[in-house]
C-alpha cells in the first residue's frame, strides 16, 4: 500500500502545480481533473483491503471491501464532472470574448 499513496501525492501536487502555473486555460481545467482523479483514487484506496472482494454480495464472501468510500467516490465523480463542464463552457465564452486562451492576456482585474 506504500506505492499508491506516493502516486496519489504526486498526482495531487502535479494537479495543483498545473492550476497555479500553466497559462493555457484548457490545461488549467485539465489540472482540475487530475486533482479530482487523485482524490477519487484516494477514496478507492481507502476502501480497499488486500484480498477483499467487491461489495456485491450475491454470495457470502468472507472479506468485503468497504462500500462507503466507493459511494462517496461516485458522488464526487458526478460533482467533478458537472464542475468541469461549467468550467469548459466558461473557457469557450472567455475565448470568444477575448480571443485568447492565455491567462496573462485577460483583462487584469485589480486584486
Amino acid at each position, binding site marked *: 500500500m506504500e506505492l499508491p499513496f506516493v502516486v496519489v501525492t504526486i498526482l495531487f501536487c502535479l494537479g495543483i502545480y498545473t492550476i497555479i502555473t500553466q497559462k493555457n486555460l484548457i490545461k488549467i481545467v485539465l489540472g482540475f481533473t487530475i486533482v479530482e482523479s487523485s482524490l477519487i483514487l484516494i477514496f478507492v484506496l481507502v476502501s480497499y483491503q488486500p484480498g477483499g472482494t467487491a461489495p456485491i454480495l450475491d454470495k457470502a464472501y468472507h472479506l468485503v471491501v468497504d462500500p462507503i468510500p466507493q459511494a462517496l*467516490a461516485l458522488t464526487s465523480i458526478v460533482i467533478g464532472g458537472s464542475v468541469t463542464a461549467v468550467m469548459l463552457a466558461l473557457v469557450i465564452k472567455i475565448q470568444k470574448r477575448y480571443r485568447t486562451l492565455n491567462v496573462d492576456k485577460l483583462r487584469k482585474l485589480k486584486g
Partner: protein
Amino acid sequence: MDMIVTLLMIFLLVTAFFMVFTKQTANAVIAFPIFGSILVVLFVIFQAPSVAMAEAVITAGLATGFFVITFNKTKDSRKE
C-alpha cells in the same frame, strides 16, 4: 498482481506528466482519456466496479467529449 499495479501506476504518472508538460494542447486532450482508462483498470483491480463504471462513462467518456468540443471551439487561438 503487485507487478501490474506498479506498472499501471507508473503509466498513470507518465500520462499525467505528459498531459501537463506537452507543448500542444491537442496532445494533452487526447492523453486525457488514456489517463482515465488507466484509472478505470486500477479501480477494477482495487475492487470498485461501480466507481470504475462511473469513471469510464463520465470522466473518460463524457468529460473527454467536453474537452474535445472546447478544443474545437477555441481553435483560432491555439497557436499561443
